[in-house]
């Protein structure tokens, strides 16, 4: 159960790379195990919270007869994706710039300790944001189907 979000995000590992994935799994360079908090789960919970929140706002707060067509739902979907893009990027990027990413997953080093290459770049954070946005689209669709039924005006949105 703990790994549900991780397994979902792993479908998009090609976007953000295996090194960032290690960090997000919670790899601890000191103990060489996955004993750090799992970022996938944290970001996943935040992403699903945002997606559910926006779905609830759309169906029960806005709940407007002139904002109840597929095109309007699609706008909310895009908003959800954009928010999650920045939320996912922000979460990981803050770890990136604050040096929270373990050295062993951040750099490839020679035995002497000199850096051969950097394994995680800021662009990987953006790509994780993209992955988060894509996952949030799926979650928003699922939440929409779950919560829409009791909405008086948008109950038939998106279909």
């Amino acid at each position, binding site marked *: 159960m703990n790994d549900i979000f991780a397994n979902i995000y792993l479908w998009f590992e090609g976007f953000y790379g295996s090194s960032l994935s290690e960090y997000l799994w919670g790899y601890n360079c000191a103990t060489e195990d996955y004993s750090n908090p799992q970022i996938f789960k944290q970001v996943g919970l935040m992403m699903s919270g945002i997606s559910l929140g926006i779905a609830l706002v759309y169906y029960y707060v806005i709940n407007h*007869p*002139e904002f*109840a*067509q597929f095109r309007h739902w699609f706008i909310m979907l895009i908003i959800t994706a954009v928010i999650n893009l920045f939320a996912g990027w922000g979460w990981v990027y803050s770890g990136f710039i604050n040096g929270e990413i373990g050295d062993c997953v951040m750099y490839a080093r020679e035995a002497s300790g000199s850096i051969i290459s950097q394994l995680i770049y800021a662009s990987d954070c953006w790509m994780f944001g993209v992955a988060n946005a894509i996952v949030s689209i799926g979650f928003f669709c699922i939440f929409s189907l779950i919560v829409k039924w009791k909405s*008086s*005006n*948008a109950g*038939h949105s998106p279909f």
Partner: protein
Amino acid sequence: MSKLYVFGIGGTGSRVLKSLTMLMAAGVKVQNAAGQCYEIVPIVIDPDHAAADLTRTVKLMRDYKKVRSKLTFNNASKNAFFSNEINLTVLSGNETENITMSLQDTLNTNFKTYIGLPLMRDEGRENANYALASMLFSAKNLGSTMDVGFKGNPNIGSVVLNQFSNSQEFIKFAASFNQGDRIFIISSIFGGTGASGFPLLLKNLRAISDEINGNRLIKVAPIGAVSVLPYFKVEPAAADDKKSQIDSSTFISKTKAALSYYDKNMNEANVLYYVGDNVFDHYNHSEGGAEQRNNAHFIELISALAIVDFAQIQDELLITNIDPNNNNGVPDFGSIKYKEFGIRDETNEIIFSNLDTSTRELIEKPMTQFVLFCKYLNEHIHDSKKGGRNQQTYAIDNNFDDLFLRSVFYQSYLNGVKTAYLEWLEEMGDNKRAFKPYELKLTEKKLFELVKGEKPRENIFGAKNYALFDSALNKQKTTGEKEQKFIEMFYNATEKLVTKEKFNMR
């Protein structure tokens, strides 16, 4: 269900019947003191079968009946639109719809021939009957044709209309009359057909032949009547029109003469309503036929309200006995009631706040609900139907789609009532004195500003205009056939809008 037979005599009779139908469509109930709705049986007495006022009324009633035939009324349904049943088949005695009492020998003949004036001769010479007839009727009267009515000549009408108690329609009417049924008569006092028809009809009802089935019940039936005093004038006839007999300068003198007659002779009705106005519009000159298409008038609406009022009077106050002297029905002494109508403010453009509270409470809410319904159908339904640009939940859930909007129920009947209702309101608004409680031409963005003198409640954050209407519709859950659900949803939604969301109507 008890029946209320409403006799509409002449053009005014037809127009008041139209107003009554409009009110009933909007949900004004014609019901007794116990709250039970009457079945309305309209009967028109008018030789002018082609009059546009009559044909418009007949079409409206047919459309109303067709719409109502798809609706059910029970405790589970709150809908009050189209509450009263209209029975259009009593006069035919079968499924054929007919609301006009036929008059024999009035088509393609003149009055002289009708009374047999050419035969009033002895040995080739004009006899005393001829002389008497010539004295009572002018040469213009005698030469007058009757296929468009009596053209303001009650002296002709009182002769010709005296025949209708022998007609098959009158016999069918009498046979259908049951205990608990009532009769109401609408007529104008200043024309020809109404002024002469009303006393004759009343006399024929109270002194109905013992040979006619149902006669005793009719003799003692509660009878109410509205006599409409002059409320419009007619443009003078064209200078080259020498034949025309309609002259509105005689309306007042005719009214005085008729009132004088009523005062002495009309003691057979239980309730008499008098309505009239001293502000007149001038109608186009027309002797009758398809050209007689007068705009709807506030007076006709008030006359229709007289019917609603009459229906609510308790039976105990409408007792009629058989007079042992002549076997006619006579209201209990002291039970004859005379009623008039007044408005609160003297104004040439009446709105709801100018009406007395009781009148306002009777019509404001239902009329506003129905006008909102009609405007929605006119301006918004194609947007919110299933498959529309802004299809709504209620439309999707109930399949209110193009197919439904093309159905006979919607396209012919409901659309017919809707168009007539809006036209009726506009005509009353254009007339003098105008009854103009609604601003019908406002844009969709000011939908709820349509009730003049009523400031709609503002809700800064909520849905507005038709979006609010849609929202109210989307919250309705109804059961039954599609037509039933459609009407009931709109009734419930408009009720919510006018009593809670935007107004505080009661």
